[in-house]
Structures are given as structure tokens and as C-alpha cells.
């Protein structure tokens, strides 16, 4: 019997196991998921009062996939009985012209049974911590935000924990299970000064448990979000134009994720709908630029022991000392002649896997951030980006800065507001002329084709020689 963790123990029932085996012997792949999550939110319009909201969810289901003639057929269901699995498999098989009929039932055993080493090893499992302790941590985050300045007007703190057990069975890959545990806290602050308003955010997360708050003290989270909101009050609106831009680790990481990572997902590369479709082997950046995706990072928010197609996680180099050498593949794109990575991920059992990033980062260099900024006579320093979009086909991007400063004479000067960065992925890569030694990671959720998965992006401080920024219309 395949080894399964307790929440999936019913899969060991003989009739269920036989049904799963039959599906895989017919060429199908089965993905089973058991997910428990909890969200705790504190919303406050004053330091003295707040509104609590708590909710929990249990989601259990399976997805069955067949492939034939270049077509993928996928079916998902909540009904985890032998009949439920069989019915789902029949629909998926028939959608690609295959059949389950006539297949022998439950003969033999899978060739391999593997429980992969989890990427997440919680030091404080979330179910070992009571809700009062969790609530107290959120109260401390909120209190630290309110304490920063009387212009703070709204504070919302949200904590989310997810424990996910997955099993993947296929005829070629046997049976594998993995456990992923993630915890994340976000703090959103609104500050007001007369009619002027600013918003700030901080949102650390880990692949792990409640040790989140040991690694990220609550008082630092709330204070950071509040300071970012206050920076937007009375900030100077910058002049639009092309200038030298220095990106802090968080901002640099988002640029790497959006402007490069998505374009290097193999499904887009293979369909020639990525700006990187024909650049493999080309020098795209200076030798100090190396970009990596690594789902095996310990405690990484985007980490996993295996991807959602059962491939053990491993590091993939995408750009090696300036040269594009790799792409992120799933099983389907790997068959198109690309080196297989372990990046087939899905939001849940209700979704077929896609090529997705995990923990994507620009490797650290040797320069100090102070030296990188010090070499800039006039430019802009962007500490954080609040979001943005990239068109993978053209490489054009637009990002909004939530924390930015004017650089004058090699020093950070006045804070700026309403700064947007515009550019092109290939041109921005080429224009990176300095890479710092302060690599760090930011956690987030990434959306693609209406699927959201947890990821992290990382970067040290980087300098881009020419980037378009926009501020006021005047």
C-alpha cells in the first residue's frame, strides 16, 4: 500500500487503493489533496477597538489526468470513494479518447512508494498553538502600528495558516506524498493627514508553523507597515522620465519574478508567446546576474518536497552569469524537449497543473547597498513595489512603487509618492549594472490563468542604469 499521512489514510482502504491502481495502470495520474486552513483577522479603526473575524476551511478532493495525442484531459471531484475516483477517471479518459473499460482491476503494486522529505519542518506546528495565542500575536502587530504616529487611522492584520497533505500516483512515478505547512501574517495600514491619504503594507510568511512570529516579531511588522503608510503623506511627486533606478531587495525580487520569471515558464516559451522564447543560450545580462528558481529552499514560502506532479524538488538555474540556460517546466512542457524541472504546481485538486515559479531569486553579488547608492548622483531608490503587471509576450511591464526615495549626490533624500516604473524585461536585464550582497526574500501569492499559488521572490539591492519612471502628469 502506498504510504499516506493520516488525513489521507482512507486511501489505504483496499477498494480505494485498487481503484487508484487501476487508474494508474490505464495511464492516468491521480492527485489527492487534504487541506486545512484558518484565517484570523483583526480590523481596527482606533487603537482601543477592533473587530475580529475568524474562519476555517477543510477541503478534500482529487484530480485525475489522462494524456493522449497531445491533449490533456482533467477531472476533479470531492467524492473520494472507489466509485467517485472511477467516475472521475472515466470522464477524464474519455475526454482524450481513452477508456477504462477492460482494464484489470487492482492487479499488482506500484513500482515505487515514496514519502518525500518535506521542505517544511515546523518548529511550532500550527495545531499546537491555541487561537488565543494567535489572537494575541495579531493584537501586538496592530498595537505596534497604532503606536507609530497619531496619523494612523486604520489597521487590518490578517493571519493565515495552511496545512496541506498531497498524494500523487502515476504508472511511471509510483506513489508519492508530501506535506506542506505555511503561515503568513499581513498588516495593512491607512494613514491620513487632512485630505491626504497613504497606505502601507508588510506581509512576512514562512514555509513552517507559528515560529513565523519568532522569525518576524509582531512589533516590527506593524511598525513597518505604519511607517510605509506615513511615507506617502506629503511625499514629493517625482518628475517623469528615464533615470537610474536602484531597487531594494523586495522591489528587485518582484521585478525578477514578474519581468523574468513568468516569461521563463516553459508553457509560454514552448508556445512562443514569451519574450524569452528565442533567447535561450543568449547573453541577456552582465555576468553578475544569475537568476534561480529553487523549491527546495528550507522553510521557503514557495517550497515543497515534490511538485504537484510528483517530481522531487530541485534547484533550476534560469540565467547563469548573464546567459539564459533554463526554463521552468512541468510534465507537459518537459515532453517538448526541455530539461525537466520540478515546477508543475496547482492551486488545488480542482486545477490541472501549470508551470509555476516557487522561490525565484537573483543571486547575491559582492557590492554593498551603500556603495551602489553612493555611485548614483541623481536617481530613484525603490524599496518596495505594491504590485504590477508584465505582458509575457512583449516583455513590457508596469510596476507601482509603494516606497521610494529620490537619490541625490549618492544619498537617499526626500520620499517620493506616486512613482510607477515602466520598462521591458530584456532591456531591464541588460541594464543591471550593480548587484548587492544583501539577498533577502519576500512572500506573496502569484496568479496565472486564474490559479493562485504561494511563492517567494528574492533579490539583493540592484541598480538599473536606465528605467522609465512616471510621477505627476505635469
Amino acid at each position, binding site marked *: 500500500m502506498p504510504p499516506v499521512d493520516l488525513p489521507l489514510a482512507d486511501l489505504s482502504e483496499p477498494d480505494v487503493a485498487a481503484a487508484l491502481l487501476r487508474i494508474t495502470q490505464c495511464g492516468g495520474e491521480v492527485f489527492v489533496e487534504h487541506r486545512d486552513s484558518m484565517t*484570523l483577522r483583526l480590523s481596527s479603526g482606533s487603537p482601543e477597538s*477592533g*473587530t*475580529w*473575524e*475568524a*474562519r*476555517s*476551511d*477543510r*477541503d*478534500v*478532493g482529487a*484530480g485525475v489526468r489522462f494524456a493522449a495525442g*497531445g*491533449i*490533456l*484531459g*482533467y*477531472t*476533479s*471531484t*470531492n467524492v473520494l470513494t472507489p466509485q467517485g475516483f472511477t467516475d472521475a477517471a472515466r*470522464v477524464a479518459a474519455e*475526454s482524450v479518447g481513452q477508456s477504462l473499460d477492460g482494464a484489470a482491476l487492482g492487479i499488482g503494486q506500484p513500482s515505487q512508494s515514496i514519502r518525500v522529505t518535506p521542505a517544511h519542518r515546523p518548529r511550532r506546528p500550527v495545531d499546537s498553538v491555541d*487561537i488565543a495565542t494567535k*489572537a494575541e500575536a495579531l493584537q501586538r502587530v496592530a498595537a505596534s502600528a497604532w503606536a507609530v504616529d497619531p496619523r494612523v487611522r486604520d489597521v487590518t492584520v490578517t493571519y493565515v495558516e495552511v496545512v496541506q497533505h498531497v498524494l500523487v500516483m502515476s504508472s511511471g512515478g509510483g506513489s508519492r506524498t508530501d506535506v506542506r505547512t505555511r503561515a503568513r501574517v499581513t498588516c495593512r495600514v*491607512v494613514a491620513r493627514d487632512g*485630505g491626504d*491619504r*497613504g*497606505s502601507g503594507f508588510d506581509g512576512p510568511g514562512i514555509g513552517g508553523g507559528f515560529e513565523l512570529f519568532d522569525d518576524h516579531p509582531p512589533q516590527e511588522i506593524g511598525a513597518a507597515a505604519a511607517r510605509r503608510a506615513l511615507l506617502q503623506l506629503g511625499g514629493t511627486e517625482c518628475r*517623469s522620465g528615464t533615470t537610474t533606478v536602484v531597487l531594494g531587495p523586495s522591489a528587485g525580487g518582484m521585478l525578477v519574478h514578474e519581468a523574468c520569471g513568468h516569461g521563463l515558464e516553459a508553457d509560454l516559451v514552448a*508556445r*512562443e*508567446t514569451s519574450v524569452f522564447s528565442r533567447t535561450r543560450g543568449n547573453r541577456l545580462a552582465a555576468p553578475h546576474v544569475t537568476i534561480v528558481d529553487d523549491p527546495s529552499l528550507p522553510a521557503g514560502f514557495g517550497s515543497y518536497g515534490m511538485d504537484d506532479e510528483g517530481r522531487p524538488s530541485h534547484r533550476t538555474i534560469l540565467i547563469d552569469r548573464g546567459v539564459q540556460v533554463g526554463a521552468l517546466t512541468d510534465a507537459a512542457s518537459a515532453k517538448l524537449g526541455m530539461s525537466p524541472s520540478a515546477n508543475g504546481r496547482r492551486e488545488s485538486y*480542482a*486545477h*490541472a497543473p501549470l508551470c509555476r515559479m516557487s522561490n525565484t531569486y537573483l543571486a547575491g553579488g559582492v557590492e554593498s547597498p551603500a556603495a551602489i547608492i553612493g555611485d548614483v548622483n541623481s536617481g530613484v531608490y525603490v524599496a518596495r513595489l*505594491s*504590485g*504590477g*503587471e508584465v*505582458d509575457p*509576450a*512583449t516583455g*513590457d*511591464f*508596469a*510596476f*507601482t512603487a509603494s516606497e521610494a526615495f529620490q537619490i541625490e549626490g549618492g544619498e537617499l533624500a526626500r520620499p517620493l509618492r*506616486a512613482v*510607477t516604473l*515602466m520598462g521591458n524585461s530584456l532591456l531591464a536585464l541588460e541594464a543591471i549594472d550593480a548587484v548587492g550582497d544583501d539577498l533577502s526574500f519576500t512572500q506573496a501569492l502569484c496568479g496565472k490563468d486564474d490559479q493562485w499559488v504561494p511563492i517567494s521572490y528574492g533579490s539583493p539591492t540592484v541598480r538599473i542604469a536606465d528605467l*522609465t519612471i*512616471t*510621477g*505627476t*502628469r*505635469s
Partner: protein
Amino acid sequence: MTDLTSALEQMLAMQQSGEHLEAYGAHRRVTTIQAGSGGAIRQVDQSETLGIGLRLLSDHRSGYASTADLSRSGLERCVEQARSHAALAQVNPASDLPAPGATYSGPAVLTPSAAPASLREQLETATSLARQASSSDNNVRVDGAAYRDEQYSVEIAATTGLRVAHDQSFIEAWIEVIGDDGSVTATGSGYWWGRAHADVDPHTIAREAVEQAVRLLGRRADALAGASIVLRPDAAAAFIAAAGRALTGPLVRSGRGPLAAALGTTVASPIVTLTDDGHHPSSKRAAPFDDEGIARHTTSLITKGAVSGQLSSTATIRSGEHSTGNASRGSHKSPPEVAPTTLLLASTLEHSELMSGDVVVIEQLTGERSGINNVTGRIDLAVTGYILRDSEPAGAFAGVPVSTTLGELLRAIDAVADDARVVSRSPALAPTVRLAPGLFG
């Protein structure tokens, strides 16, 4: 009695003294077919999900939990979680579960659900859509085409006696194309929704996408100072949706939010009249009741430029107020939040009148997800489109940065066309909108 109905009733029977329970059950079946260049089918997804979201009120404290495990033990666990979450919440004297309402109205087109087309018919439609676009223009290739059929049932049951249910179905078809003339790359998209498979017109959807991509190719336009700005529906939808989200009960009452708008405040030009319609037959979001079981309404939000109303749910109203029927859940996992149903901007001109003379036409936005700040109302994003000079195409532009605020944009609206249409993923039936010259510099 369906499995879902049985599970809902089992859950309500777990009520304890001093409690009220509201169980929201959703059963969803979705088929999505993806096709690529030349009409080749890439993937066929068929999903079926069944789940319940529970709201438990105990002494005016609310707790939420949800589950896809409809076994007896799964339901019991869900109720216990909601009970423990309620113990954490504050007392909110205004919180109450909806009582059974009056009869629910709505156009007959909402019910009953249409039976889905066969898989073979769905595959043929997706193939046709991709083929039509693949063969339309030598400079255009297909990025992806999709056909989606969704059938869902919602049942809401509460210990107050509320029992409502409705079925819905709709079909969507969309396509994304990439144009490349050797010097410029541009994208185009086409979208359609309806309720009957027979109404799907792959040719029209493909043509819309190809024509958009082709419009954005070619020589780059020179700046056109002093021209009016026209937002095509895909672009206008984002701003209309932002205005709708800004006009919810708590924000209007407090005079805060991106429009800082209390009732009666002027927030837009005098020609702007915005309503939210819970029953509009041209919207896939139309339903007889909202996700708390409250009858949907038509709510006036902005009348001749001034705030005239707000959207609410039972969780956001104050004592003495009535919900506008705008409670919305993303799925059974989400507690209800206030959201627009279908936003309508009253038209003032025919479409052809907006597209004459010297006009800057904005077709696409980049960075709108974060570029429209729902707290401060700031708008910082990039726009793509083309220019009309004396009503004739005079070049395209891409990725031009613009900065303004939601309030400034609404005040700059000086005409609204009569071509409102559904835009993918937006609550707006968005028309073409004209802005006065100079807003974007």
C-alpha cells in the same frame, strides 16, 4: 432531496440554544476547453465541487467555517469550528441573519438552467474559435482560446426559516492573440458570454481579438495634444468597478475611501449616473437573491455626479437600514462581502459620436491590479491604444504612463456611449467613455 440539501439540514440541526446558523451550499460543475494555434485542443478540464460555508451567530457574535467534507463528522467539525470562532468575535448588536424574504423577482431568463452542450460540440466550438483567429491575418497568431461552461446550484438555509435555492448556467468563450509586424508586438483579446451554446459566434469573437491586435500594430503615433480621450469598454470597466467598490455602506457613511464620498457629495461630472442592477439580464451575475438570500435590487449610486446611494449586506447595515442585496461570496469558503452586481453607466451619446474628430483611444491598461489604489484612489498605470485624426487612424501607442485619481477621472467624464457590454471578470457593463482633454497630460 439532494446530497447538498441533506447536508445543509443536518448542519442546521446542530444548532444549540442561543445560536442561529446560516448554511450556504454551492454545487458547481465547470468544463473548460483550451485550444491553441490552428485549433489544436490542448486541454479539457472538467471539475465538480460541492461545499458548504457556515455562518454561526451566538449572542450577536459571528463565526465562520467551511468544508467540502459532507460526512457527518465533517459537518460536526465545521460547526464546532464556527462556534469557537464566534467566541472570539466582538458583540455586534446589528448583526443578524436574514429572515425569510418576500418573493424574489427577476427576469425569466435567469431560470431554469440550460442543459450543457455535448463535449463534442464544446470541442468543436473551441477549435473553431482558435482556427478563425489563426487564419485571419498573417501578422496575428493565437496565444490561446478557451470555451467554458459553468453550471451551478446555490442553496441557502438558515435557522431563521430562510430556504432559498436557484440554479444558474452560463457559457464563456475568449481568445488572446499576439500580433507582430516585425517591428512591433501587440496583443488582442475577444470575449463573449451567454446562456445558450447555439449563441456562441466564434467568428465574431476571433475577429474582435484580431482587429484589436492589428489596430495596435503599425507606425507609432505622434503626441496629440488637446484631444479628447476615449476609454474603450475593456479600459473603462476597471474605473467603473473601482467607483462601485468605493460606494459601499461603511465608506459612504464615514465619508472615507477613495472617493471620500458621503451622500450628496459631488464626486463626478454632472453627466455621470451610475446604478447597480441585481437583475440585469445581460449580466451573468444576475440572480434572484444575493449570497445571504436577500432579494437583489437596483440601487442608485451616483445621480448626475452626486453620491445617491450605497451598496450593503446584512453585515454592513446599521439598525433600521435594509440590505441592498449585494452580499457576495467568491465560493462557499468565503464569508459574504459587499460587492457590486452589475454596474451601469447611463449613456449620453451614440458610440459613433465619440469616435469622431481628433481622439486618443485607450484600448488596454497595464498594471491596473495594483495601479488603481482602492484606499487612496490614486491611478498609476500604463495605457495602450491608437489615435484618430479627423476620425481616421493615425498610429498606435503602447505602454504610455498615466497618473491621476479616481475622483479626477470621474469628474472628467463628458460623454458615455450606448455600447455597454460585458467585460471579462468585471462587474461593469462597460460602455465607451469619453474624458475631457488634458486629464492625462
